């Protein structure tokens, strides 16, 4: 086999010998100056997360890039671009996709979210009860363990019943606790009862109508 010959430019004549030394020294010096400058003069970008909760909104002098950021004293010396001015500070944005939230009264059990979800995170069951225009949910389960925060469900929801919260701390020791049903047991049983009554009533009504019809017949 062919072993590639490592002729690095080290060996080409006396002038390149000294040019190599010069280049090494100068580029290393430039690099060291840059790291020194970064270490000593530049602002640290660390977000000390648990002690400074981005949700809380940190104290004014702790925001990394406030509007009207004063320039550093060595700005002209260090080159431009030291201060990043922008309205977007490192905070949780308005559109942040945190853990999914659910607003039960708004939900009409249209099943759009369950259908669009590519990985079946959401399970919805709705029943028809009296006094409510649309179906009422009796099960609304979100499996946070599976959710990939793609946002398709939020996008299709016609009533904003499912939405993104800005919470992001969902760690747990048991992944079973990541599966959550948003309809309480009490409410579900109540609704199921109401639904059963409604269907009974409807059945009775139908029966009566049927019997009426037969009577008429």
């Amino acid at each position, binding site marked *: 086999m062919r072993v590639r010959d490592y002729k690095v430019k*080290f060996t080409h004549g006396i002038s390149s010998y000294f040019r190599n030394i010069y280049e090494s020294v100068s580029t*290393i010096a430039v690099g060291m100056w840059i*790291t020194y400058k970064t*270490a000593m003069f530049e602002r640290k*970008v*660390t977000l000390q997360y648990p002690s400074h909760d981005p949700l809380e909104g940190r104290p004014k002098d702790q925001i990394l890039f406030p509007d009207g950021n004063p320039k*550093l004293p060595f700005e002209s010396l260090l080159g431009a671009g030291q201060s990043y001015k922008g309205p977007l500070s490192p905070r949780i944005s308005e559109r942040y996709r945190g853990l999914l939230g659910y607003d039960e009264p708004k939900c009409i059990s249209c099943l759009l979210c369950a259908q669009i979800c590519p990985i079946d995170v959401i399970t919805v069951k709705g029943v028809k009860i009296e006094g409510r225009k649309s179906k009422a949910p009796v099960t609304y389960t979100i499996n946070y363990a599976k959710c990939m925060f793609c946002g398709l469900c939020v996008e299709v929801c016609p009533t904003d019943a499912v939405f993104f919260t800005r919470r992001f701390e969902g760690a747990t020791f048991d992944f079973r606790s990541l599966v959550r049903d948003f309809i309480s047991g009490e409410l579900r049983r109540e609704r199921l009862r109401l639904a059963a009554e409604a269907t009974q009533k409807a059945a009775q009504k139908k029966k009566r109508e049927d019997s009426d019809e037969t009577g008429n017949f």
Partner: protein
Amino acid sequence: MESFINYLFHKIGFLQQVGYIPTAAVLMLFFCLLVLNFFGLVAGFLTFFERKLAGWTNSRRGPNRVGPYGLMQFVADGIKLILKEDIIPATADQIYFKFAPYLVLLGTALSFVVIPFGPRWSISDLNVGIFYLIATGSFTVVGLIMAGWASNNKWSLLGGMRSAAQIISYEIPNALAILVVVLTAGTMSIQGIIKAQSGGIHHWLLFSSPFTFLAFFIYGISSIAEINRIPFDIPEAESELVAGYNIEYSGMRFGAFFAAEFGNIYVVSAVAATCFLGGWQIPLVEDVALLDPIGLAVGGFLGRPPVLAVLLLGALPCMYLAFTALRAFIRDLRAKYHYRGSRFVRLNSEFLVLGLLFAAVALIMVLHVPLRGWLPEIYRLVFQYLLPFLSFFLKAMLIAFVVLWLRWTLPRLRVDQLMGLCWKYLIPLGFFCLIGQGVWMYLFAG
């Protein structure tokens, strides 16, 4: 250190009753332990400092959770390493595997025998001191190869072999640079080399001739290579060999490698400071021995009660002035840099600084009273030993800082380039320096 033991022996009557040999033995052991602790402390501090520097250069904060400014981080790391399970691979060569880290550590610890702390202050001032340092440095190679081989891991083996090739190659320019120093100083004793540089900053070897100036950089580069730091860290090149020779180590055995690495940084920095930056020589002071009568005089002067009273009274308004000035200065600084520290320190920094100053002055004042008779001696010791030690330590730390700083700037060389740098650049330059320095000395000094 013998001189100090002699000094104590003659000064303290009790010791004379015990006898010289037991005294010397006990004191020697005590000083050795002291120096070993110093080694651990310095290595620990350097690990902390490296991480802090890494943070700074990377626009991060670095460790800041354990202790004030994260200073206790290395203690926490040490506790973690001790508590960790010590895993030994089943197929490893048990004896060598267990022994290797201690051999590496031993090599570093042995170097501390001749590392000076001040004039006449080292465990032992061997007459072949610098030669001894080069010799103990080679312990490391054996340890590293042993670790690499005994791990029974191909990556470890590659790391061990790389380190052997590298360290042995770089011993040559290293020794050549040191030879220039020995040639100039005319002695191999560490204290002798330092004494040869007395007489002001232009007598320090770094500035005394162009050849020693060049030799300093040759020494610097080759010693960085010898202690396996970036840009020469190919034996443990993370992105190539994962962790090189210490890939299979865990727990305190890994900690031993780690401590040895950082101890080595201090050793090479101390040697560089010794050989080229005048060791414990203080800048602008021609000879440290001249400080001795100053210490005696200051001690004697301060030992008089009226002087104390005047000083105390005079100090108060001065302190007030200093306080206001400091306060304004800190304000300015804070406005400039958008300083963000802990809330307590931010609000109370002036008071804290002032309080510390007061406490220090008060302590000194209070201690002065019972120690009045000893004051000349104490001040002599401070001027004779403590100031030179501080000077030496700061020089060594400055060089260590550069070593760490290089690590966070530069990429790493390839094996063949590493060898090319050694054999094509450093060794010829080393010989050039050696001969040039000889000629220089013949022309100007001899």
